[in-house]
């Protein structure tokens, strides 16, 4: 069932076109991640859904209710949209303790007394906060504050849970845990969740569906696996993962090469490319391996440096004007090596600055 439907949302701020017709749908029991670089419009889109920003155009439905329809002049204020929003800063009210922070949403819906108490304590217990209910926000750690913020947004069972960079204020270890338990919680509750993030690992790990935004446009959407393994544009290919970008000319229907090197690959560009045209190839660093000798799609390269990263070694390789990064388990001495670059790992795009 579709719980959230966003269609053609347009937003201008000052003279800037922040959102250029964003559309997507999300249904119960799934997490949608809005992923993008800063300035891509992802937070603005979330705030438009919440009703905190007023888009100039578009239509938004939450749980079957039209909350925004610019054509009919409908724009419900945030409090009438039946949403829960978790802020990046958590925004816990400093003058209320944990219990009252969480209970406020129930109070506004006329639920008080024993029933409110039961529901608040139930969700606090679920997130392991039961013993902290009398504390004030400034007496909590960052991780605890974040969980209170999530309780507060969920306790009144909104149709849609919105999260604005929910993990960005946690330290690295807590963040990895939170990815797991937040996803588990949302799936258990079976609600529809939308999260904004600039962290690709977070989006891939937590979401069922990833929307990649660029300059206010959703450039690609799909499951995390599709997004990572089948990018549709150069931007999507380059934004996700750790990559090498190779610049050269199209030397065959499916090959790219430059001075002293040539690789077979797959063309992922949407428009037709002509042989001899300037082109770019994206190669994920983890797809390059060091091999013992020549072969199909093997390149002989020079090891310029070898950096120790703890879990692996990073190799800095070059071949004339071409330079690449790769990873491996062993330290390599400077000098020539052979690298294998599988054909399907070389994604060829046009060279135009469109992306």
């Amino acid at each position, binding site marked *: 069932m579709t719980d959230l439907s966003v269609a053609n949302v347009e937003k201008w701020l000052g003279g800037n076109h922040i959102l250029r017709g964003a559309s997507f749908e999300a249904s119960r029991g799934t997490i949608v991640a809005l992923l993008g670089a800063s*300035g891509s419009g992802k*937070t603005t889109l979330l705030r438009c859904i919440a009703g905190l920003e007023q888009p100039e155009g578009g239509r938004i439905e939450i749980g079957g209710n039209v909350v925004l329809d610019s054509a009919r002049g409908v724009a419900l204020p945030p409090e009438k949209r039946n949403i*829960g929003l978790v802020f990046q800063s958590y925004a816990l009210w400093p003058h209320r303790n944990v219990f009252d922070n969480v209970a406020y949403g129930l109070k506004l819906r006329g639920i008080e007394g024993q029933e409110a108490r039961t529901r608040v304590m139930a969700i606090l217990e679920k997130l392991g906060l039961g013993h902290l209910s009398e504390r004030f926000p400034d007496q909590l750690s960052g991780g605890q504050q974040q969980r209170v913020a999530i309780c507060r947004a969920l306790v009144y069972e909104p149709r849609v849970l919105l999260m604005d960079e929910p993990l960005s204020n946690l330290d690295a270890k807590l963040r990895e845990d939170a990815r797991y338990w937040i996803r588990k919680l949302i799936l258990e509750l079976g609600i529809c969740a939308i999260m904004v993030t600039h962290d690709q690992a977070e989006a891939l790990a937590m979401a069922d569906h990833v929307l990649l935004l660029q300059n206010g446009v959703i450039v690609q959407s799909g499951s995390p696996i599709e997004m990572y393994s089948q990018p549709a544009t150069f931007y999507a290919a380059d934004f996700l993962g750790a990559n090498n970008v190779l610049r050269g000319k199209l030397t065959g229907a499916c090959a790219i090469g430059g001075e002293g090197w040539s690789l077979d690959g797959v063309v992922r560009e949407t428009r037709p490319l002509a042989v001899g045209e300037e082109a770019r190839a994206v190669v994920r660093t983890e797809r390059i391996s060091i091999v013992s000798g020549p072969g199909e799609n093997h390149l002989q390269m020079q090891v310029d440096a070898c950096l120790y990263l703890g879990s692996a070694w990073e190799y800095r390789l070059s071949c004339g004007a071409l330079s690449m990064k790769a990873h491996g388990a062993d330290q390599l001495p400077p000098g020539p090596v052979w690298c294998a670059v599988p054909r399907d790992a070389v994604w060829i795009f046009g060279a135009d600055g469109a992306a």
Partner: protein
Amino acid sequence: MSAAGGLAPRSEGQTYRVAIIAALVLVVMAPVGLIIYQSFLGAPFFDKTARLSLEAYDYVLTDPDFWIALRTTAIFAFGLVAVAVPLGAMLAFLLSRTDLVGKRWLEPVALVPMFLSSIVLAFGYTVAVGPSGFVSLWMKETFGFKPWSIYSLGGMILIGGLSHVPNVYLYVSSAMRSLPSDLEEAARAAGASIWRVSLDVTLPMVLPSLIFAAALNLLLGFETFGIPLVLGDPSGIVVLTTYIYKVNGIFGTPTYHVMAVVAVALILITLPLVYVQRLLLRNSRRYAAVGGKGARATPLRLGPAGQAIAWSVIALWLIISVVLPIGGITVRAFVDAWGEGVRLRDHLTLAHFAHVLDTPSLYRGIVNTLLLAVIGGAFAVAIYLAVGLAGHRNKGPSGALLDYMVLLPRALPGIIIGLAFFWLFLFVPFLTPLRPTLVSLFVAYTVVGLSYGLRIIQATLMQVAPELEESSRTTGASPMRTWRDTVIPIIRPGLVGAWSLIMIVFLREYATGVYLMGVGTEVVGTLMVSLLTSGSMDQIAALAFLSIIFTALGLGFALRLGARIHD
């Protein structure tokens, strides 16, 4: 990314905003409109024969006294700025950027002149260094001559300038505090002495705040009433405010149209100044935003010689602007005779206070002043809060209108606001019964304190992070509910602080009541103005002393609450 955007337009919050802003426009524009209307009449507006004419303009613009007063006002205002700005900037540098000994307790003391009304200060100077003041007599006794005269334009400028040093200090020091100290440390490391650092690094960085302070004090200079009244009047030096005050006496009949024309002339000077300040403030904020990133204030070391020089300058300033007037009033309030060869110790008395308490009008004045300050102050803060919320995160045209409405009273000296409300309470039938009550004074005081009070409230409101309000909205609370349940509880300490500061403003007010005050609505400050005419110095001294005590108590209360004098 998440710039504060406009929320959905048709909310209950919007209706509230429109209602409050409309009420504000009415309360601010009505007196201004009445003054302008009156200035174009040939007679007082309640006179049946009054009709539109330029007679009053003709009279004022051809009156040489008006032009002299205008010239004197300009010289006074610019002179005041020339004295106050360099001293205030120096004081700010020493107290906020150096390791000056004792700066912690020095700051509240240095602010004292700002919290006293200029009528009290001016009276203090009269009894201390006036022609027969304590210090003047001692000078004559000891050295045989007295090298100064405070009843002169020079004396007025000096005293006005010294008493406005705190106003400069406040703005410049808050700019200096937000200045990261590594900029100064870099200059010291490069070999600059502390005085070079202050001139070459600190001063240029805080220039916008300095210019703002100069514009503000220029405005205050044009509006001053107490100092010219006490110090200028005896030797016939007239400025625009005292011209208005005196013009009734010249004609012997109400000359409202003439007063209105002078008021209009004054507004035409002050309004552009207020506008310039608004522009400067906007620019200086932009300027400050470049620097102030977690300013770490490591004070500059003055060294023994520097400490000695700095302290002699500050001590001299403190003696002249705090010790002299307050000491003079304190002595004067407790003695019944003084002069050459008189030992003050033999003439100590409480008779002046007994007399004040025995005189019904003076006693009522004390009670009324306290009522207005404490209870009126609380109501005024509630009103400022209502206005503040109407403008809070209001990016629309009504928010801009509110900004201008709040600034407008600033262009009006207290005496003119009082006059306009006096007329309004005469003119509007259903208000007439309120004129002889404290309500009329309260309304006028609230307008006088509007821009100051609102600035405090707005600063407090801005401390509430926008997400705290947004999270309340997304949780399901309406805008009004958000204000009631979230915003107001969070800023409660700030409101109490605002109350204490408004209390002080209302305690020291004297000019607003000059026309509004009547039998039963006496207030201490204005009583001093009217007693001045009859020359009852004993009572003035007692009232001035009480006024200082009240202000000190209010200030103590404010500091106790941690009120942010720096805004």
